[in-house]
């Protein structure tokens, strides 16, 4: 790796470690930007060289902040794009010789159509020297970037399909996706939003304030009132930090409580998320992707005498299991949780689920 890009990687790693850069969206953008530089500024001739290069950078970024799953997702997307490009190139070169074979390598390895045919997942095939692949790959990665930029647009345009007039909607925390979604809907319909204030971060209060500024009728409720008012709610619309491969969510603390209350009352739970938050990882434990933050927000130093006697925890995220979610609204449309595996297959290569360097 060239020294210049190495420095850039170091800078981003440091930012992630210090949590100067947090939040799925910001992290995803930064990762993608860095990877474009890595791809364009480094020398590589074979596919494997490039894959290994991106993997090693990705590995460092992921280890810098294990809870930001978006980093890994973006790296996997890029790896996937690289593989696809090499396959395309290979296919086109092969098709010169033998035109019968062109369909198989173009599709992804796990598509139903080539279950019985030769799979293209063998990495050895990507060792051919590349001609003008570099620009193609960079173009593809730029497309991912455009996708990231238009995610809010794509999701919010679906708003009117999901919100009807005079609806009561509940949400928690502050998610830009949900915020834009609701604001968009409010331009067409009149409805009411209940926002749980989400102690101790109080992001829900900010959310309600922003919504009310945009003319959405918003009511802040304490987190304790979530169950009490749930019976009158028509839909629960949630943002999330990450979506796991089983359809489970890693979302702001309190989401589990709200989703469970909604399930008790049979209220549909809708999750608005960009696909970049979809991770091919499975939660082996509910705390897998959680982070425990500063407990000062829960019990401050004013209660110093108490603090030395008690344990205070302040988990930032909640794990919400997939049975609580009815619908994911992504930039590619609405999907039930059971469909997510398909999206994972389409977007990521199974070889990239873990980042062990290639032999």
């Amino acid at each position, binding site marked *: 790796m060239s020294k210049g890009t190495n420095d850039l990687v170091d800078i981003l790693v440091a930012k992630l470690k210090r949590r100067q850069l947090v939040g799925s969206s910001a992290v995803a953008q930064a990762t993608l930007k860095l990877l474009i530089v890595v791809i364009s500024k480094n020398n590589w001739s074979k596919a494997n060289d490039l894959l290994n290069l991106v993997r090693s950078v990705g590995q460092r970024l992921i280890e810098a902040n294990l809870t930001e799953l978006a980093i890994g997702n973006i790296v996997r997307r890029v790896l996937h794009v690289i593989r696809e490009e090499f396959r395309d190139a290979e296919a086109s070169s092969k098709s010169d010789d033998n035109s019968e074979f062109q369909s198989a390598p173009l599709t992804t390895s796990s598509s139903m159509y080539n279950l019985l045919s030769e799979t293209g997942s063998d990495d050895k095939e990507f060792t051919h020297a590349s001609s003008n692949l570099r620009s193609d790959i960079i173009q593809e990665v730029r497309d991912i970037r455009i996708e990231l930029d238009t995610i809010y647009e794509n999701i919010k345009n679906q708003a009117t399909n999901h919100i009807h007039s005079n609806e009561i909607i509940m949400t928690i925390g502050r998610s830009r996706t949900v915020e834009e979604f609701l604001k968009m809907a409010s331009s067409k319909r009149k409805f009411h939003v209940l926002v749980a204030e989400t102690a101790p971060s109080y992001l829900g209060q900010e959310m309600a304030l922003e919504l009310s500024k945009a003319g959405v009728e918003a009511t802040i409720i304490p987190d304790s009132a979530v169950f*009490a008012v749930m019976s009158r709610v028509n839909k629960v619309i949630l943002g999330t930090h990450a979506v796991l491969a089983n359809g489970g969510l890693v979302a702001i603390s309190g989401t589990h409580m709200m989703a469970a209350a909604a399930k008790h009352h049979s209220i549909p739970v809708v999750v608005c998320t960009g696909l970049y938050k979809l991770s091919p990882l499975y939660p082996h434990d509910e705390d897998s992707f959680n982070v425990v933050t500063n407990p000062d927000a829960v019990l401050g130093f004013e*209660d110093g005498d*108490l603090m030395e006697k008690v344990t205070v925890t302040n988990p930032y995220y909640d794990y919400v299991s997939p049975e609580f979610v009815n619908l994911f609204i992504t930039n590619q449309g609405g999907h039930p949780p059971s469909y997510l595996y398909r999206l994972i297959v389409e977007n990521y290569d199974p070889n990239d689920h873990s980042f062990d360097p290639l032999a």
Partner: protein
Amino acid sequence: MDPKKKTVGFVPDHDADTTTSPGGSNNTSTVNSPVSAFSNTPDLSSTTNNSTTSTPNPAGSAAASSQPRSINTSGARSSYEPMKSSYEEQWGLTPPSRSQKTASPRDGSGFPAKDQGGSNKKENKIKASGLGIQANAGSPSTDGPQTSNSTSSAPPSAGGAPSSGGKGGSQKPTAPSQKSMTKAERRELQEKQKAEKAARVSAGLPASGKKAAQVLNQPNSGFSPNPSKSLATSFPGAEAEKAIAAAESTGQARRREKLTKEIGLFAHLDPPKFANTALAPKDLHPAVVHAGLQMAQFKICGANARCVATLNAFRKAIQDYQTPPNTTLSRHIQTYLNPHISYLVTCRPMAVSMGNAIRYLKYEIGKNLELPDEDARALFVEKIDNFIRDRITMADQVITSLGLQKIQDGDVILTYARSSVVQGLLLAAHAKGIKFKVIVVDSRPRFEGKQLLRALASAGVPCTYVLLTAIGHVMREVNKVILGAHSLLSNGALYSRAGTAVVAMSAHERKIPVIVCCETYKFSERVQLDSFVQNEIGNPDELVNDQSNNFGHSSTRGHPSVRGANGGDAASAAAGAGVLTGWRESRDLKLLNLLYDLTPSEFVTVVITEVGLIPCTSVPVILREFLPMMQQ
């Protein structure tokens, strides 16, 4: 066990949780204050009420809190002179002009209670942070002049008396025209609100007095020149109430909506109430007035504490009652008590426990119509004492002993907010030597669980403290959930502090047993299916995180580390300004502070009562036993 002593446990001290003064520089001092308060507690308590309770021991404080009238009036009066301003502010007894002044930054639409921060809060903190009970004991007794003033005179004059006692001294310049002054101010307030809701210039006392005099000449609308009404201005929230009343009187429905920020789904519930003796008829017994005010300000909260306070107040009222000519005590006492009861309702919606106790009292009165006066008086007093002893004090002891059987070594017990019974049970289990761990789950806006945490931690019980949002995170290690109750309804639903339902649901979801501790006198024949039809709305401003309104809780400060996740408002949040300050100005923003919620019976595994461990669907079975009393 002496029932009076027992009440100590019920008396909450929110003072202990009132908090920090605004401004960064004060922060250090507030952090230090609990420590210093701890190191020399006797000293501090003596500054609190040097003349009233000479020995700041729990027993003394119990007497003070349950019997505020036992305070030596004359001594208290003089000794309070130097620190009057602070206690007046603490109890919201600030003269009208002042409260208006403090209210003005938030356009007079807010509730001044919050703005009275600053020095008094800090002082409060120092006094209160020592030891819960002592701190609380100070508070009712500081109220001495108000109630005791009138105790020495005959009860009938009590209604108006506290007002003059409370503020006569501090507002001498305008004292002669005070009656008209406040009315005029009210008028002025109304005028200005009509004009616009922009900030009223707090032009100092004389200026507003002049203005007031001018405005006085105009024809008066809505308000009757009732002297007791002038007191309204001196209590927190009175401004807002007045404003609302003004808006109503002029038929401005839209403005009313703006002021109250009524939530459509809860439009049928009473708007939040404020301590306000203006609503009290003149001839109320001061003990009842006092209890009502304390309930309105949440100085006394919790079903047991409120019930005991009510009964104690009524006992005093009965003891001091003088039978009018041509009637007998037992025939007239009910008509005498009725305005007291309705006054309590105007202070805060009646707790189920209070309702049941009052019904029992009425039942006893109705049963003994023919008794001679003195016998009847003694009987009713005895019945009240017996009720407290049998249905509350002894019931709690039985519940504790039954509950002890359910706590074993190695248990991890989760509880929510604070229930006096649960606290007693956990402390008893610890005293018995059972090794268990407690997870205290708490929530905004009152952080009641902190009191429980404090009690358990100082007893040496290993505790974990989390907020309600983290319930999913902590529930895994829990193997029992023990909850308190405000009431158990006839359909088996548990009516309790908002958030209880979420806790019970989370436990139910993970198949963790949910144990509810509830005395049978809290059972209600009411049935309810959701949390809407019957509930109570709290002051929405409690949800605003500004410095003066965080109930001793630091979480309301901005935390850049946490908020950084979404960037944006981190800077403003870190500055200490609440996100919601000025929410009333925002047309589309409302705040809902719901006080109770309803837990469906399916979430509750067992209810521990003094008659044994029963499923919560057995409530009507138990109620049948008390049928004659309930039919009253």
